[in-house]
């Protein structure tokens, strides 16, 4: 890292990852204080209340859907996949940043991850919960959804292992289990801290239960660190695999606009892009509300905007390359699909996508902007919107005008589509607000690790 004593320019010295006059004790105080406070801040009530209401809407929409039929959505012939699949890919994408930050950055020894990893892992889990819901409710006969699992049954039927949707089932469920495990394991020492400080019996019981008898002994720390490393190594390929597999849903099909080999890396880049944007969307208000400014610092935000800019350009490259390949292949259907995408009836969606995903992150070339929280927050929303539209553009514009012009049909969502999407945000924020209130939002032990006090010799070895 800061191996640059030869230069005197101040900018290249990274700022401290923990700001202010924090020591080991004050960090514990800050993080545990949020949980121990008799009442959460007012903003928490407002956000949680809104999220809960939205969750109620989601519940109502699902009940309506299941009792009535998927016709309550706008899906039609030829657009058999509409918003639910768009939402699925959107949420899976969001769920990417968590594991990337916690596992990949861990393996690359990027210490700045410590301030945000707990946060983003939680976000991952909740986003995958939202994502997993969509393919399940989107099928015509939800009561038979268990047929997609390779369970022994009286019909002696296996699922069809050739179907990318089945690969999805495995990819997403594996990703979810590993992410959950990784997140929970990281939580154990912190839960023990909360348990030790708890004053009420209930708290002591529950935190005690989930901290698995952690005492903080040397042996435990040793086992913990090994296991953490192993899980990080396991989770790393998943970061690449899950969205690659999700992209196979499209890439393996025959449809012009979907049938593209660039999809796996393009989807992974897009997922990281949207995941980091969502971490920013969440952490910027959270650090303010819960007083975590000294732990989640401007340096963290700066780093994340750089990742966004890099992945945004990768995504932009993919957009361009898709056009090139459509032309280069000489396939008239491919060619038409892309021209239609950019200039046809859904051009509005395409240009929203391009301006949000490719153009807007370019302002992060400027350090001032990277450190302007208001701008960064708004940009992160742009990216979220842009990435939702990316999935919309891929799914709907390819389907609505496929091979035979007689089948062409514009897709229009219904109010149920819209409320279900809103409702999925309700689910996400409800879970996230509960996390903020009841679990340590910052990995206490890990942040302590990056304090100067933990490394008396700094990095100078």
């Amino acid at each position, binding site marked *: 890292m800061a191996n640059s004593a030869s230069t005197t320019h101040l900018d290249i010295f990274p700022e401290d990852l923990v700001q202010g006059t924090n020591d080991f004790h004050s960090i514990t105080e800050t993080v545990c204080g949020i949980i121990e406070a008799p009442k959460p801040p007012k903003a928490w009530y407002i956000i949680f209340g809104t999220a809960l209401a939205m969750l109620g809407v989601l519940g109502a929409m699902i009940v309506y859907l299941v009792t009535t039929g*998927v016709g309550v959505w706008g899906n039609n012939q030829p657009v*058999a996949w509409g918003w639910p699949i768009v939402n699925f890919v959107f949420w899976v994408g969001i769920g990417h940043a968590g594991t990337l930050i916690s596992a990949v950055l861990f393996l690359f020894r990027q210490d700045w991850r410590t301030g945000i990893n707990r946060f983003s892992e939680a976000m991952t889990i909740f986003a995958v919960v939202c994502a997993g819901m969509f393919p399940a409710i989107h099928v015509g006969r939800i009561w038979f959804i268990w047929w997609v699992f390779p369970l022994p049954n009286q019909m002696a039927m296996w699922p069809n292992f050739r179907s990318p949707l089945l690969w999805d089932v495995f990819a997403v469920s594996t990703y979810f289990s590993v992410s959950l495990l990784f997140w929970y394991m990281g939580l154990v020492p912190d839960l023990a801290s909360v348990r030790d400080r708890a004053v009420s019996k209930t708290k002591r019981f529950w935190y005690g239960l989930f901290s698995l008898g952690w005492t903080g002994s040397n042996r435990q720390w040793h086992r913990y660190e090994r296991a953490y490393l192993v899980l990080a190594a396991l989770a790393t390929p998943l970061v690449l695999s899950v969205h690659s597999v999700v992209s196979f849903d499209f890439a393996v099909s025959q449809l012009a606009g979907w049938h593209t080999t660039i999809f796996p890396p393009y989807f992974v880049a897009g997922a990281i892009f949207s995941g980091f944007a969502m971490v920013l969307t969440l952490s910027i208000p959270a650090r303010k509300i819960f007083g975590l400014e000294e732990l989640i610092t401007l340096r963290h935000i700066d780093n994340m905007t750089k990742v966004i800019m890099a992945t945004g350009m990768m995504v932009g490259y993919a957009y361009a390359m898709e056009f090139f390949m459509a032309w280069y292949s000489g396939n*008239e259907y491919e060619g038409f699909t892309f021209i239609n995408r950019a200039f046809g009836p859904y051009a509005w969606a395409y240009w929203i996508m391009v301006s949000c995903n490719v153009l807007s992150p370019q302002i992060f070339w400027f350090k001032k902007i990277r450190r302007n929280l208001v701008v960064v927050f708004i940009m992160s929303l742009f990216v979220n919107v842009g990435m939702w539209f990316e999935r919309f553009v891929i799914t709907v514009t390819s389907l609505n*005008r496929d091979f035979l012009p*007689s089948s*062409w049909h514009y897709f229009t969502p219904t*109010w149920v589509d819209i409320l279900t999407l809103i409702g999925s945000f309700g689910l996400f924020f409800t879970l996230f607000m509960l996390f903020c209130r009841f679990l340590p939002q910052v990995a206490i032990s890990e942040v302590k690790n990056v304090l100067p006090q933990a490394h008396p010799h700094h990095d100078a070895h």
Partner: protein
Amino acid sequence: MNPSASTTRYWRSLNDLEQTSEFKEMMAKEFPEGAEEGITTTSRRRFLQLMGASVALASATSCRFEKENLLPQANRKASDVPGKPKSFATIYNEGGFATGLMLTSFDGHPTKVEGNPNHSASLGATTAIAQAATLGLYDPDRSREVASYTDGNESDSSLEEFKTAVVAKIIATKANGGAGLGFIAETTASPSELRLRKAMQASFPKSRWLTYSPVANNNEVAGCNLAFGVSSRPYVSMATARVIVALDDDFLSEGPSAVRLSKEVSTNRNPEGEWMSRIYSAESNFSITGGFADHRKPVRSSDIAGFVNSLNESLAGAHSDDKFIAAIVEDVKNFSGSVVFTCGAHQPAEVHAHVAAMNSKFAGDNVKYYPAAVVGDSMKATSEFIAAMNSGKISNLVMFGGNPVYDMPANFKFADALTNVETTTHVSLYRDETSKKCDWHVAQSHSFEHWCDGASPDGLVAIGQPLINTIFNTISHIELMSVMIAENASSKDIVQATQSFSNDDLHAGYIKGSASRAMAVGAPKSLPKLSSSDNDFELRFMPSFALGDGRHANMGWLQELPDPMTKLTWDNAALISFKTAEAKGIKQGSMLKLTTAAGTLDVPAYLMPGHADNAITLALGYGRTSAGHVAGLDDDEINSVGFDAYKLRGSDEMNIAAVQVEVTSAMHILATTQDHFAIDAIGRKGMEDRLPSLVREGTLDQYEADPDFAKEAPDFWDKDDSLFIERDGLKTPAHRWGMAIDLSSCTGCGTCTIACQSENNIPVVGKTEVLRGRELAWIRMDRYFLGTAENPTAINQPVGCQHCELAPCESVCPVAATTHSSEGLNDMVYNRCIGTRYCSNNCPYKVRRFNFFNYNEDTELAGNEVMKMVHNPDVTVRSRGVMEKCSMCVQRIERVRIDSRNEDRDLFIEDGEIQMACEQACPSNAIVFGDIEDENSRVSKAQANNRAYKLLAELNNKPRVSYLARVRNPSPLLVEEQSEDVVSHG
């Protein structure tokens, strides 16, 4: 609207050519369609309404079963195998004439209509309307009991009460010759019904009679009278006609001979045959005949007279600047003796007379004349009858069928006239508009419920056998007439008393030797020159393609059958040309206020390519207010489907009226199955680029010069580029099923769609769902236009599942719900389907259909107990949430296989032994199904034809369905003009 768009080659509808500001606005809007009323919101209300009906029905049917004199069979007859269908020959009367049917019956209830190959009017095929006859039989809205009305309040009564109250009175008038009696009946050729009408006239000599049908052949017969002085009717044969000139005549879909003519024409549209006929069509609206023709010219209906004048002059030797006429004249010269002229039934008698004269000169034996039949009374007689009603000269009126309150000329004010008659009775299938204005309604039996007879246009008599006892407490016309003359005969006795017939005749489906003999009409008289019209703006009334004159309005299948040219469902519209619409500022769906001498009506406009200018064509049969739960029922607050064109129809202008058009700012949403939305320049370009390879066509000369013209493949297609090791050699199945569809024969009539719907239990989905693009047709008719908006040509392509050997749908289903059979069928396992819809996304033909709702249960009528009887018991009724699609009538394959196995010959199923429902019903022999393993099968030969190509073959899906490129036979005189339109292939 951009006139430069006229250079467009292929497009789907006029919307495609439109570049209006509204269009752009709509495109700019994110959600142009808006939230539509869902199927469930309406259906819940209708469902409750029907629950009441169903309960009533349950008790009604149980009564019925108690009364039946069925004896249990101690020993089952050898021919009765439970679950095994039987087929009986019977008839279907449409427009007064009969056509022969083979009716499939499962355990005593008929389910499927097929054509009778022995019958001269059917030749094995049917119309779409006849295919829906079983739906009519089980329509829960059909009247179930006699009803009486006092002050408009309906109450159920019984036949006995009716007999005491009305029939007794009628019989009592016999003493004074039946004075004060009035009868209205429909035009018919049924010998028994005609005999009984005569018998009634004999019993009640002073009674007044009126024969009225809203669509009749009066003008044709009057024309023959003018031309030959003999009351007769032309009978056209096209099998040997080298040149066919259709004058505002949609002979492929209108009239009693449409099926026979389609069959005959298809035999000489074979490019591999010795010769190929050439068809000219001069017509106002773009009909399927116009689409099928080699040359078409838009001519207003009222200008046909002028066109005939010019044609006559040119035929007499005058030079014509009109290339179209010159080409006809040239062909007439070359093929004199086999040139047939046909004329639309709605054209005035004078035009018919001239056409008859031309046929006498040029048609040879291809046009014969038969005795006049199915002729209604003149408008003068009709108005006198109504005057008699109004003046009280008729005190007891009985109407046998028809629906005069709905379909009489508006100026007669028939409903008012009814109030001046003391006792009025309507005998009909439904408690319709007329019944509700009467004192009595007598529920009529469906023709499959009683013995009947009928004659086809060549006079061939056929007996209609009943296939089921009356489901409700109903009576047939002939039985009721028999009651009124105090004979009380059963329908069988009546039919037997009319003519004797043997069991062989019943079995064959017609009485041998009963066809009339052609009349010798002699030479035509000299006819005065036709006067040309002075109509500024004409309105032509056209019987609806699907609903006829309106009597089939409550058939959901027919309401949802897309019109072949407009693709419109669940509505009629004022069809108007592009140019006229532009001049008047009319947009697609603009509400127009039409005013004729008879009345005013607001109707939506539909911009129809190729329509004649300054003219509107409007279909009759819509806007019913008392048809039923499908088409409109004011009593239950169910809105009418479409707009009632009869309100504009006056007795002086029954077919073509002068009309004033006022454009209003209101818009109406029209539900089409194609072209749901306006298209932008990019979409249009995309279509133009790809359509030549999707629907391939060429001219006869081109085909002769390059027989493989349809084989060209896109250059990016590497045929050997397959990653799969195909397992063909491992196990050769006994059969490999395949299909071939000849685009040269297909007229686009859509009968296949209804035949498939009936065979495979496909529910209707309703207008809202059609707007959402969720119609369920397993075989759909794609229609594309080619050329300019002023006078395009059209091409049709029936598309069902292509049964790809490397089916893209199969590999993507996560639960393996769609798999391949060893014989090459792409099977759909409904029980296994969980509805991910991935298969549909991956299907390049988009032939897979999804049950977005529980269409079979939730739509208003489908859940009804009676309605369930229409289902084919061999086909699963699909539930909500599953995908469905063409199964290649797998139940038909299996049925034949079971039989052949029982006979130990399952490897030797004969070619043609298995017929698909679509293939069976097709009036133009366009569809062939069979075993491609058998080199000599018709399908193998068709697939080996030079013209055969596979749709989107470059995707390497290896479809089992081949299309045979369409070949047109343009006149050499017009070919240069058209060459710019002809698509270059490849």
